[in-house]
């Protein structure tokens, strides 16, 4: 075999390539340690054996320590921000968690709890973590083989590697897939060639750990990482037949498959074995239900899940990054929990460097940031590489930094939507001024609510690192502005205080130096603690107008050519609340807006139907209980009739049991597979909202102590993601109780067997309880079973119609009549939309708004008067009414309780 000479990537000296596993640098002082392997990523002979990493600066794995993967035995485990994963696409460790990369199209996108990353060597985004979009991963405690959380090897691992290759190696050339990382066997072979037999043993130790008796081997005899949780002695704080552990004393031990007891849901059909869910179909391992990740004691923080690949030495706990959060389904069904969360959050220690545990990302605003777990690991954020547009880059940045923040808080996106001339800029200016000055200047009936300015550079440092390019910083400074202390302050002083209106936002042509379209953000604090960020966008009305024209036929933002339109559309889809500014001067508002109201309505239709079904279930369940009580007193004739009736209904009972069991299984699987990303988890809960609502409603009636206890525990341990997950798991586990399961089945049957009239009555009761004015047809319930739940507007629950310039134009009183009189086409959709949002515990509100109270004629125009004569009306209310509704903030007592 001929020897090839190449240039050393570490010192630029000549190297002799003996084989892919044996390349030796001529330079005896080579900083790379002279001996190199072929790196499958950069495809150079630059993997330094002594360093354990590639020394080619352009390599995507440059400087990253690679360890042996205990699963595939390749030197292919790297770690990014504490999260380790194998670079081998074929590795079993992520057999279920590798998906198709949207960039390169290969099945090479590894899902980790914190991010997803493509490992294909020729992918432009290789090794660039990005926010998660799908949820295929398995939990760490699943106990079904290696999870994707591959812990960094202990220190002695590195030492062993160094020792193994500390001098020249004589390695026979081996055929290696050029893309494949090193194979352990090859390393062993190399080591054997080096020291005549010692090395393989040591390498083997590296690869399998030492001879600790607790080591577990797989079916092939390979030692694998232990990842199961050995419960520490502790009582179950949840009391739901679940055995949580004190994570501080938790040792991760992998359970064998046999040890994993499948959870069988309650006898779905005690009569027929068909209805007993098989372990396979249930697919909930005991470890899942019985091994919560976090410890209830002593603090409700995310608990690092120590992973001990080599149990000889007690490894440093490696935090499980970003436990999966779970959405509370909606406000009403979990009122006690929400109440528990609503306590005033404690201030974050300024110096806390660690990331807080991710709090439930909500499709409402119900969550609050919680305290960080000491020693937690910051989820990696990164600058998306494939974005050219400034505004899209800014959106992604906001998504990472504020909307789905590392501190676990999920900020509501409230989009202020208005056509040209509707007064957006003036509205936002006054809104910012009110937020900035609060009670000192304005009517501001919100307790202890203040704002803090957004420091873009600080956010960049925090999320993209201090090494973020100056170019990116410039872009973000231009495109992300602080609403209160920057944008509003300037406009207020320059224009409104100068008795002139804030000029209309200029439409960007793409050539101007000044960014006219930008995001506005502000941080809302209650009692000094962040409760959310308000994020909206300032751009020209023409842009909104164009989007409106397309929205009816739009299915994806990709259909939009303009980056600005794409971002607007994304924002709209991400928005929890939308403020639609209506210019009373405009004659075509009705024509312009009716599409968007229709889209809103249609997008949330199925969710609304599911919410209705859940609420109807509650009433039906209450009726069922009453019926059960009355049945105790029925006479013999009635009993015979009842028996006959039941006989006829056996089949339906059976189906109902099967369906409930299936629903439980699906929910559990979905929770188990829920990714750590906000959107991913939000999706899971949103998609299963109906069943969750149903389960909670039934449990509240038959086992009220469940909620009570949950309240107490949440209050005591915090609203951590882990606790939420545990709560939902416990919720499911409760249905192993035959009695409860039966009640749930009965409730379902009650719904399905009710006559049309009964359904109407139940719906009417729901409507009355929610104050829904529009009649809901009983056939609407059928929508709940539709599978085509729209992804559009998936968080939307609040729509506010803000009629601006009411100081100069006749107002309609009461304001809720405005659509009826002034927007007749929209009104058709708004009526229905209002019912839907109410079912989702949101609302449609109408406001007559004025930024200044009264404008005075000055020459041929009407202009603002003196600054201290401003009486802004309904500027902050459309926004804060949403926050109040979510109990994110509190109103003053004198505002709402009617007390004098």
């Amino acid at each position: 075999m001929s020897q090839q000479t190449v240039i050393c990537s570490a010192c630029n000296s000549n190297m002799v390539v003996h084989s892919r596993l044996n390349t030796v640098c001529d330079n005896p002082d080579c900083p790379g340690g002279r001996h190199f392997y072929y790196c499958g990523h950069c495809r150079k002979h630059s993997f330094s054996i002594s360093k354990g990493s590639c020394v080619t600066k352009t390599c995507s794995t440059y400087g990253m320590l690679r360890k042996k993967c205990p699963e595939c035995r390749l030197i292919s485990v790297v770690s990014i921000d504490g999260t380790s994963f194998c670079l081998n696409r074929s590795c079993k460790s992520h057999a279920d968690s590798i998906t198709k990369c949207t960039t390169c199209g290969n099945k090479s996108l590894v899902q980790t709890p914190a991010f997803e990353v493509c490992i294909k060597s020729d992918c432009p985004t290789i090794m660039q973590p990005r926010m998660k979009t799908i949820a295929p991963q398995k939990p760490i405690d699943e106990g079904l083989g290696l999870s994707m959380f591959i812990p960094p090897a202990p220190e002695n691992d590195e030492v062993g590697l160094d020792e193994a290759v500390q001098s020249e190696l004589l390695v026979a050339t081996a055929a290696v897939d050029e893309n494949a990382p090193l194979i352990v066997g090859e390393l062993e072979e190399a080591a054997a060639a080096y020291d005549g037999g010692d090395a393989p043993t040591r390498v083997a130790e590296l690869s399998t750990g030492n001879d600790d008796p607790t080591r577990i081997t797989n079916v092939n005899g390979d030692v694998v990482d232990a990842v199961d949780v050995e419960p520490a002695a502790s009582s179950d704080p949840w009391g739901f037949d679940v055995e949580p552990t004190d994570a501080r004393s938790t040792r991760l031990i992998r359970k064998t498959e046999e040890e994993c007891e499948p959870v069988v849901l309650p006898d779905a059909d005690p009569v027929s074995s068909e209805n007993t869910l098989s372990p396979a179909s249930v697919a909930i391992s005991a470890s899942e239900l019985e091994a919560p990740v976090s410890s209830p004691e002593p603090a409700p923080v995310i608990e690092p899940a120590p992973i001990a690949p080599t149990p000889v030495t007690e490894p440093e706990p490696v935090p499980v990054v970003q436990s999966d959060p779970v959405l509370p389904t909606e406000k009403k069904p979990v009122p006690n929990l929400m109440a528990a969360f609503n306590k005033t959050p404690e201030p974050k220690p300024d110096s806390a460097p660690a990331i807080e545990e991710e709090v439930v990302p909500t499709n409402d605003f119900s969550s609050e940031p919680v305290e960080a777990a000491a020693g937690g690991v910051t989820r990696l954020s990164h600058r998306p590489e494939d974005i050219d547009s400034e505004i899209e880059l800014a959106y992604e940045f906001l998504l990472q930094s504020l909307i789905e923040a590392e501190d676990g808080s999920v900020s509501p996106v409230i989009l202020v939507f208005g056509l040209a001339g509707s007064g957006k800029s003036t509205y936002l200016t006054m809104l910012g001024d009110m937020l900035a000055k609060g009670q000192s200047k304005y009517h501001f009936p919100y307790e202890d609510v203040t704002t803090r300015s957004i420091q873009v550079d600080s956010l960049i440092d925090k999320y993209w690192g201090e090494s973020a390019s100056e170019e990116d910083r410039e872009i973000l400074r231009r495109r992300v502005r602080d609403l209160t202390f920057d944008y509003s302050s300037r406009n207020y002083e320059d224009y409104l205080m100068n008795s002139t209106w804030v000029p209309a936002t200029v439409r960007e042509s793409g050539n101007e130096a000044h960014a006219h379209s930008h995001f506005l953000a502000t941080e809302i604090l209650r009692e000094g603690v962040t409760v959310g960020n308000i994020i909206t966008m300032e751009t020209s009305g023409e842009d909104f107008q164009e989007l409106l024209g397309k929205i009816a036929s739009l299915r994806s933002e990709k259909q939009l050519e303009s980056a600005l339109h794409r971002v607007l559309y994304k924002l709209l889809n991400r928005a929890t609340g939308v403020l639609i500014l209506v210019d009373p001067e405009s004659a075509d508002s009705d024509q312009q807006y009716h599409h968007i109201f229709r889209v809103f309505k249609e997008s949330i239709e199925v969710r609304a139907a599911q919410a209705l079904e859940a609420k109807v279930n509650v009433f039906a369940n209450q009726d069922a209980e009453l019926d059960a009580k009355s049945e105790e007193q029925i006479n013999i004739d009635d009993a015979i009739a009842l028996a006959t009736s039941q006989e006829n209904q056996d089949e339906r009972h059976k189906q109902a049991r099967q369906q409930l069991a299936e629903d439980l299984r699906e929910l559990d699987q979905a929770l188990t597979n829920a990714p750590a990303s906000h959107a991913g988890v939000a999706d899971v809960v949103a998609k299963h909202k109906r069943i969750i609502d149903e389960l909670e409603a039934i449990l509240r009636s038959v086992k009220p102590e469940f909620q009570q206890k949950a309240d107490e525990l949440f209050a005591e341990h915090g609203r951590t993601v882990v606790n939420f997950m545990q709560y939902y798991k416990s919720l499911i586990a409760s249905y192993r109780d035959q009695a409860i399961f039966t009640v749930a089945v009965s409730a379902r049957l009650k719904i399905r067997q009710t006559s049309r009239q009964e359904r109407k009555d139940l719906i009417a009761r729901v409507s009355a309880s929610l104050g829904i004015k529009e009649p809901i047809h009983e056939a609407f319930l059928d929508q709940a079973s539709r599978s085509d739940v729209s992804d559009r507007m998936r968080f939307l629950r609040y729509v506010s119609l803000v009629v601006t310039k009411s100081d100069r134009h006749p107002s309609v009183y009461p304001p809720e009549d405005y659509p009826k009189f002034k927007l007749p086409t929209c009104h058709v959709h708004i009526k229905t939309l209002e019912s839907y949002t109410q079912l989702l515990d949101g609302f449609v509100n109408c406001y007559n708004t004025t930024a200044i109270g009264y404008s005075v004629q000055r020459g041929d125009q009407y202009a603002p008067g003196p600054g201290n004569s401003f009486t802004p009306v309904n500027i902050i209310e459309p926004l804060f009414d949403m926050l109040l509704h979510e109990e994110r903030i509190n109103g003053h007592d004198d505002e709402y309780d009617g007390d004098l």
Partner: protein
Amino acid sequence: MQSYVDEMITIPEGPFLLGASYAAIDPVLRAEDSKRNLGLGAVLDSTPPIWVSLPEYRIMPKQVTNGQYQTFWKAVAPDNPEQLLVEDIRLWDYLWQLYPLGDVRVPTPTPGKNEIESYTTCQTAIDALIRSYSFECQRLLLGHHVPLSESGYNELSLAVIRVFAMLRRGLAHVIWTDDTTLERGEEKALAEGEDTPAAYLKDLEMVLKEAESPLAPAVANQVPLIVLLRRLRFHITRNETTVFAVSDCFRPMNWADDSSQKKAAPSLFQTKMPWDELPVCGVSLYEAAAFAAWLRLVTNEPVILPSEAEYEKAFGWDTSVTNLNKDAKHIFPWQGHNVKDFNFWFSRDGSSVKSLEARVGAYQDLMKETSRTVATGGTLYQGIGFGWQWTRERYNELESKYNRFEQATAVRRSEEDETLYDYIECNDLNCRYFSVRGAPDQLGGAGTVTRRYALSPLRGYAECGFRCVASPAGAM
């Protein structure tokens, strides 16, 4: 005229609550506010409750009507039956001494840029009015003010200066008691062109064309400057003279001429509200104060424009209550007999009070429903919703939430565990605006008796009228 004073409603002396807090208003209103998003809290926020005391005074039950104002407009000077009172320089001199203005900072559309309107050399209120229009015309057509010593730098600026110099000279009888003393720039401008009505008409046409051209006709008809220029053009064209009368130029904005009502279109069913019974509007503070001065002159009563407190007490305080009882405070005049929000009566369906003027019954019903019965006798009408109403008080742009009462000089005493203040009128000469009360029907949020706004005293506004009081302050 004596009847105008005789009809006044007496408001007894005593304490009352100036301003109001949201927490203390009628719970029914608060419930309505929460339900309807009316913004009452925002409206009340700038006027927190302060206990103040006022001496007894009397107030007109309705706003001054077109008919009443026309009577004034036709009144003759007390010592010269040949001369209309409005053509008597003493009237306008008196008003200027009563409400003088100094240098007024005026914002421009350019951020951070202000212009100064200087009235320090004005002789009378009419002089100030003319100068105010001149400044506005210069800003509008030239973009800036021309120094008083300059005659202009091009044809248009020269025309502007000439037109207003001509007007000042034409109204010299209500500006100067002695010789006409124009500014140097004005004299130069007049000297640079022909001193004939035709030449001034040409200048006037040029200025008017420039002012009108960017505007739609309907808008132009509402612009006071254009209305004034058109009146001048009409007068010069008809009379071929540049000598003017006050009534030619400064009658209320919406009066076509001195007898506007005679030209009103007849109604088929005679259901229109009579023109002379409608509130007069479009009069500047000085023109309103001139009416009060006339009334004072002819009745020898201390008639004057009301202070803010006098207005508010009349329309928002139960005069039967003499102690410091917060419950006696109302934010709507009609609260004594119904608890409805402002918008229930005004602008509820997008229509304005103006539309009711065509239906006398509806208009009178509205007046009745929104009236306030004074416990000590009499009924007050048109308290809010029928337009702003001039007060004699200046509007301090620096004041916040009645902090004038926090000054050390505020006279206060403790009463019933509350602090009771002598009311402090704002008479700061540095203030360029005057306060108005009452609220028009077209308003952001609710009109309340506590609501204040600020208007320039040198303009008549379509939504601003006035009423008078007979008060100790008028005796000064």
